[in-house]
C-alpha cells in the first residue's frame, strides 16, 4: 500500500510540542540545570555535580520535612477514606435528599485553596475565632499559632473538612453503580449489614476507592497553599511540609542549587509512589 505523504500533519503536531515544551519540559530542565550548578547571579554558573543532591539527602532538615509530610498524608488518608465511605453509605439514594447532599458535599471542593486557609485561620484563632475561642472557653488550652500539637490538629481538621467530600462523592458514585439485585440476594442469604458491606459494597467500590486514595495521596503530599495561609509552616517548623520547606529554601534563603535538587527528589518521590500504586492497580486489573 502506498502511503500518502502529507507534510500538513506537522501543522497539527508542532503546536502541541511547543506547548508541552514551554509548560513542562523547559521549566523542568531549568530546575535540572540549577540542581547541578552553583550560581551567584549575573548568569554565572559553576558545575557542582551531585553535591546538592548529597547535601539534601543527608540533611536533617529534609528528613524532618519528609517525616512530617509522610505523617500528615498518612493521617489524613486514615481519616478521610473511612469517613468518606461512611458518609457515602448514609447518604440517601433517591428523592430530594440526593441533590441537597450532593450540593452540600461539593461546596468545600469549590472554595479556592487560600480562602480555605484564611477561613480556618480566622475560625481557629484563640481570641476571636469561633473554634479557637470555644475550645478555650470549655477549658482546652488551644492556640494553634504557638503550640505545635494544636497547629497539627487544626491543619488536619482543615484538610479533612476540605477534601473528605471528594472521597464521599467518589464512593457514592461507586455505591450507586451496584445493582439493587445484589442487596436483595444478600438479604435472601440472610447476610448481615457488615457482611453486605464487606463482601458486596467494598469489592464493588474497589476501583473508585483506589482512585480516591491515589488522588488524595498526591494532593496531600503536595499540599502548600492551605497550611501556608493557615500556619505558614509554624510554629517553628512544626507544620513545614515538603513544599513549604522547599519554598522557604528557594525564595527565603535563595539557595537555588539545593532547592532545585530538593524539587527533583520531591518530584521523584511522588512519581515513584504513583507509579507503584498504578502498577499494583493495573496488575489486579489484568488478573481479573
Amino acid at each position, binding site marked *: 500500500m502506498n502511503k500518502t505523504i502529507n507534510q500538513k500533519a506537522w501543522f497539527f503536531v508542532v503546536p502541541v510540542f511547543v506547548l508541552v515544551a514551554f509548560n513542562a519540559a523547559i521549566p523542568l530542565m531549568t530546575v535540572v540545570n540549577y540542581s547541578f550548578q552553583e550560581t551567584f547571579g549575573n548568569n554565572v554558573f559553576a558545575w557542582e555535580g551531585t553535591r546538592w543532591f548529597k547535601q539534601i539527602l543527608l540533611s536533617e532538615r529534609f528528613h524532618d520535612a519528609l517525616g512530617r509530610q509522610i505523617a500528615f498524608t498518612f493521617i489524613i488518608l486514615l481519616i478521610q477514606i473511612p469517613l468518606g465511605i461512611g458518609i457515602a453509605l448514609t447518604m440517601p439514594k433517591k428523592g430530594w435528599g440526593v441533590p441537597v447532599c450532593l450540593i452540600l458535599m461539593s461546596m468545600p471542593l469549590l472554595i479556592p485553596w487560600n480562602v480555605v486557609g484564611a477561613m480556618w485561620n480566622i475560625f481557629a484563632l484563640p481570641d476571636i475565632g469561633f473554634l479557637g475561642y470555644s475550645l478555650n472557653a470549655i477549658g482546652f488550652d488551644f492556640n494553634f499559632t504557638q503550640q505545635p500539637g494544636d497547629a497539627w490538629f487544626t491543619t488536619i481538621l482543615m484538610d479533612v473538612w476540605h477534601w473528605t467530600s471528594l472521597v464521599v462523592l467518589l464512593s457514592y458514585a461507586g455505591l450507586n453503580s451496584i445493582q439493587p439485585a445484589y442487596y436483595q440476594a444478600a438479604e435472601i*442469604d440472610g447476610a448481615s449489614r457488615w457482611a453486605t458491606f464487606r*463482601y458486596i459494597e467494598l469489592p464493588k467500590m474497589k476501583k473508585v476507592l483506589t482512585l480516591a486514595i491515589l488522588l488524595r495521596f498526591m494532593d496531600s503530599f503536595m499540599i502548600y497553599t492551605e497550611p501556608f495561609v493557615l500556619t505558614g509552616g509554624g510554629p517553628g517548623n512544626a507544620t513545614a511540609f515538603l513544599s513549604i520547606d522547599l519554598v522557604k529554601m528557594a525564595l527565603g534563603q535563595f539557595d537555588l542549587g539545593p532547592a532545585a535538587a530538593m524539587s527533583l527528589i520531591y518530584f521523584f518521590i511522588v512519581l515513584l509512589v504513583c507509579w507503584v500504586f498504578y502498577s499494583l492497580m493495573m496488575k489486579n486489573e489484568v488478573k481479573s
Partner: protein
Amino acid sequence: MSLELKNVEKKIGIETHIYPTSIKLEKNTINVLLGSTLAGKTTLMQIMAGLDKPTSGEIWFNGENVTGKQVQKRNVSMVYQQFINYPSFTVFENIASPLKITGVNSDEIKERVGKVAELLKLSAMLNKKPDELSGGQQQRTALARALVKDSDLILLDEPLANLDFKLREELREELPKLFEDRECIVVYATTEPSDALMIGGNTATILEGKIIQYGKTLDVYNKPENLTSAKVFSDPPMNIAEISKSGDTCKLTDNSVQWKSNVKIKDGNYKIGIRPHNITTYKEGNNTVEINGKVLISELSGSESLIHFTNGSLNWVSLSNGIQQKNIGENTKLFMNVDEFLYFDENNRLVNHG
C-alpha cells in the same frame, strides 16, 4: 406445600403495579410468569419472596400466613437477570455462602457444593472468581447458589435474558431437569413464549399488572381464555381479524377471504386469532384456505421464513418452514390452516373450546 396469593395488590404512590391477584401454586411445579417487560412479573416475584410487601392482600405458604415475614426467615432463593455473585468470593465460596450463614458444618458444605457444582458443570471452576468466568458460567454459579440451599421456593427472574443465544438454548434445556426431583415450587419469569413452551409446567399470562390466565402451559397456549392471553402467549404476534359467520360460511369483513367452518357457534360477528405458523406458503392440515397478499417484509432465519404481507386492509404475519424466498412487493398466495383458528366473541372471550 403450596404458595397462595390472596387478593394481593401492590400500589406505589397512585400507580397500581399489581391489581388484586389471587393465584395458588402447588408443590413440585414449575410455574412460568409470561408477560412483556414492566408487566409486573418482577414485582409479583418479590412479593412472593417477601422482598416486597403487598399494599393489601395476603401470602400463604404451607397453610401459614407469611405476609410481612422477613425474607431471611423464609426458605427462598432467587436468580436474577443480571449475574449476581459475590465478586470477591471464589465459585466454591459463592455457592457455599447461603449454607455458611445458616451454620452447616464444613464437611456437609463440601459435599453439597460438590454435588450442585457437578450438576451445573462447574466442578472445574470452583477456585475461580466470578470475573474470570463467562456469562453462562456466572449464571450457572448463581443458579447453583439458589439450588444448594434446598429452598421451598425458587424464583428465577428472566435468568436467561442476558445470555447469548447458544448458552441460552443450552441452559434452557437443562433447567427443567434441575428441578425434576426437588421438593419445591419454582417460579420462572420470562418475556418469551418459547421459554414457557420449552419449560412446560404451568403458565400464567400477565399483562399490565394483571394475571390474565393461569393453567397448564399447553392448555393456556392451545385454549387461551381470551384474546389478551392469546396475544401475550404468541411470538411472533398473533394475527387478528374481524369476521362474520352465517351458516357454515365464515368470511373476513372485507370479503377478501371466505371459508367453511364447522365450529359450533351462533351466526354473527367474531374476531379470529391466527398464529403466524398457521399461515404458510404451502398447504398444511386438511382444511386450508387461500389468501392472496403482497409481501411487505420477508425475514429468513434459515430454518424458518417470516413473511409479512398485506391483503389490502389488513397486515398479516406468516411463518413457514424452510427458506421461502419472496421479494418485497411480490404478489403471493398463502394458505391458512382453518382448523387452528381461534374464534373470539365481542367480549374477546374464546368461543371454540376444542
